[in-house]
């Protein structure tokens, strides 16, 4: 058998508190389209960054190109070995001409000091000829459509003598016809003996172009499979199924509507979104990154006004154009990471609690009224059982769980009926996650309606009563969580 183009063995990458990759190993053959598959956060990006030399793997990892072991890979040597990544943002320069975007990298690589425009033109024409496309070389890149920019990025890779082309979600911003054209180009590159590592979340695309799949889950390598040995369901079950032991809270069927979202549409964001949040319910909204989840909840909170559609709160029409409208209507929104990062650590619990209520607490002169503040602080500290019960203690001295309570308390102090949390437990440890879950459930039991936006399926299944699944700006499923498993949700999201 021929030596594979790329072989990786035992690749791991640890960040403080996170094992992003653990003992990953697979190989890519010459002229192969190899798919790298995994959920959000499975470690795909980390692996790409290691291959492109941006991150260094942990010491025992081995990367071989054409049988030769590469020690200490940095961005330049990675390019020298023909590994070229086409990032989602293409890493191109909008202010430079197409000509320079294609050829400049080659000059940097060859450590020449002067540019030769005649030679550049020849290289660029060659690269575009290989791709079989025509692009005006003198136009500024920023004036091209996204699909054309992508072609320029691929042409640049060819001009750099790419042997392994890594395409990071290349289809995410293309129209259907553009995707078909891209696939044709991918096949023609494959025929020329160039290997492609293809990253996508879209099953139909994966099956349409890939020869083999390598699957990552939670930073661990699951395996490499031939395209014809797997079907959709098997692939999904290999991707999901993260084993995380969260407490599973009892599922309820609730029926008093609190917030009804009807035909919400925003051009370029999402289309025809319908769902109902009931009183006391924990409703999950999930989907892949870029499905439009955050955009929808931001619209509900007045941060991203929708073009069409209505919102009903307790059966009455409400109009929300700004966050202030939303807060007055009783909607609170905690953006991503705010539970873990929403504190001013060098201020006291008391001061942190008052942040959302400055206008309520202040007197006619615009100064904070200490009596009102005391009363408010006492109420919420006891309601949420924040320990130690000392309002003057610096927030930094509180335990993680108690810090999160302070953040939630500060929003609850605005007395909302609906609490929206976006990725409430992203990047925090399991113990702290469990604390937040417990808190959210207890708030729901007290009658609040809670919307949890999360990519983490085990989390959705642990705490939500119902889940809305989104895919490319549309709702694809609205299901009770009782009896669901991760595959059921993923098959609607992908």
């Amino acid at each position: 058998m021929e030596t594979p183009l790329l072989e990786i063995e035992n690749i791991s990458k640890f960040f403080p508190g996170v094992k992003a990759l653990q003992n990953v190993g697979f190989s890519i053959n010459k002229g192969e389209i190899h798919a790298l598959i995994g959920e959000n956060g499975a470690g795909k990006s980390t692996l790409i960054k290691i291959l492109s030399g941006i991150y260094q793997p942990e010491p025992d990892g081995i990367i071989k190109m054409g049988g030769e072991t590469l020690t200490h890979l940095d961005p330049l040597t990675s390019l020298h070995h023909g590994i070229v990544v086409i990032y989602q943002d293409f890493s191109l320069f909008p202010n430079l001409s197409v000509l320079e975007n294609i050829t400049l990298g080659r000059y940097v690589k060859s450590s020449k000091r002067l540019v030769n425009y005649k030679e550049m033109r020849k290289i660029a024409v060659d690269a575009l000829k290989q791709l079989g496309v025509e692009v005006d070389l003198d136009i500024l890149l920023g004036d091209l459509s996204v699909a054309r920019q992508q072609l320029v990025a691929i042409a640049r890779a060819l001009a750099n003598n790419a042997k392994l082309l890594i395409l990071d979600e290349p289809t995410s911003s293309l129209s259907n016809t553009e995707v078909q054209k891209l696939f044709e180009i991918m096949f023609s590159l494959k025929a020329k003996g160039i290997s492609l590592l293809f990253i996508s979340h879209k099953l139909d695309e994966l099956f349409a172009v890939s020869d083999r799949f390598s699957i990552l889950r939670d930073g661990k390598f699951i395996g490499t499979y031939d395209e014809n040995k797997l079907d959709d369901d098997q692939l999904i079950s290999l991707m999901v199924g993260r084993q995380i032991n969260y407490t599973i809270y009892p599922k309820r069927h609730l029926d008093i509507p609190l917030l009804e979202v009807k035909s919400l549409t925003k051009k370029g964001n999402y289309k025809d979104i319908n769902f109902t949040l009931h009183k006391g319910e924990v409703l999950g909204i999930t989907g892949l990154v870029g499905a439009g989840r955050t955009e929808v909840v931001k619209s509900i909170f007045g941060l991203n006004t929708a073009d069409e559609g209505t919102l009903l709160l307790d059966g009455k029409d409400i109009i929300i154009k700004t966050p202030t409208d939303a807060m007055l209507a009783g909607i609170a929104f905690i953006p991503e990471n705010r539970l873990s990062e929403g504190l001013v650590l060098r201020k006291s619990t008391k001061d942190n609690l008052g942040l959302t209520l400055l206008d309520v607490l202040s007197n006619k002169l615009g100064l904070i009224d200490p009596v009102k503040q005391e009363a408010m602080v006492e109420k919420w500290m006891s309601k949420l059982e924040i320990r130690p019960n000392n309002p003057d203690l610096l927030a930094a001295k509180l335990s993680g769980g108690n810090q999160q309570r302070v953040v939630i308390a500060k929003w609850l102090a605005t007395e909302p009926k609906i609490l929206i949390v976006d990725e409430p437990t992203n990047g925090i440890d399991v113990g702290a996650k469990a604390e937040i879950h417990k808190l959210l459930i207890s708030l729901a039991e007290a009658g609040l309606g809670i919307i949890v936006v999360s990519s983490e399926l085990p989390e959705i299944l642990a705490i939500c009563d119902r889940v809305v699944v989104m895919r490319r700006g549309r709702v694809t499923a609205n299901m009770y969580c009782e009896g669901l498993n991760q595959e059921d949700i993923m098959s609607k999201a992908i």
Partner: protein
Amino acid sequence: MNRLKKIKELPLLIVLIAISVFIAIVNPAFLSLENFLDLLKSNLVLAMMAMGMLFILLTGGIDVSVASIITAVNVILGQTLVHFTQNIFVVVLIACAAGILLGLMNGLLISMLKIPPIVATLGTMSMILGVVLYTTNGNWITGIPQNFIDFGRIILFPYILGDGRAIGIPIQVVFLIPVILLTWFVLKHTVMGRGIYAIGGNIDSAERMGFKTKKIILFVYSIEGLIIGLSAVAHTSIMRQVDPNAFLGFEMQVIAAVVLGGASTLGGYGSVFGTLIGVSLFSVINNGMILMRIPTFWQKIIVGFIIISSISVDMIQKKREEKQKVRVDVEEGGTYAV
């Protein structure tokens, strides 16, 4: 390529011509050869400094310490001439070295310590001005040696006017022209020069492509320092004395001229030709306001207005571009199931 570039700067050129025609109609003295040569002589330092600033703006940086650096170099230059040597060649070398060192100081703060350019250069500006004040007490340095004064008075291609005065191209263009050529060559024909544009376009991508971005940033502040050193020689040879307050607020004029010439304060856009038009535009407007006897305070207000409006147009365009980027691909005909 060249054809396209010319088209890009055409609107500016038209504005320059239109304003010149307008001023010439109001005051025909504007069009005289003498006025033109005066304009050249009095804006030559601005043009040189603008080349230096172009390097900085292209990387997305800014340097507000340029006026203080040229002041410091002028003082060093003046003291050297008065106390140590009259050799013009040595003096030029000393001025360049001083300029490079001061520029390097900014470059180190910005590339190594990652201090935002505006903060770093505000800081060095204050420090440099403090040292200048300490050494000069705010007093002029006079007594510049005669050979240097004579050098500064040389005119090339002299032409004798009816009243016996000789006019011609000031000798200081021997500093201006090499600086323009150097800037053009570095920016247009060296890999590092294209890297300067690349950094301004997208610094992360430039890094990924293998450009040594720290080194390049260090380089732009140093070459700017070198240009300032040469500007100081040109300036002192024209003025024949050193006034520590001559350049108060001059950084704004330099930045304004470059931005007027089409450079973006966010980096990545700008050219030598555009900058030269920007400098001309700025000098013609200034000169025109004097010829039209517009009061000084109005001149200042108008200059400020020009700076803010040209930068705002730039910012508004950038914002519009940003907005177009944030999009989610919405699938047609999705299903909805309960």
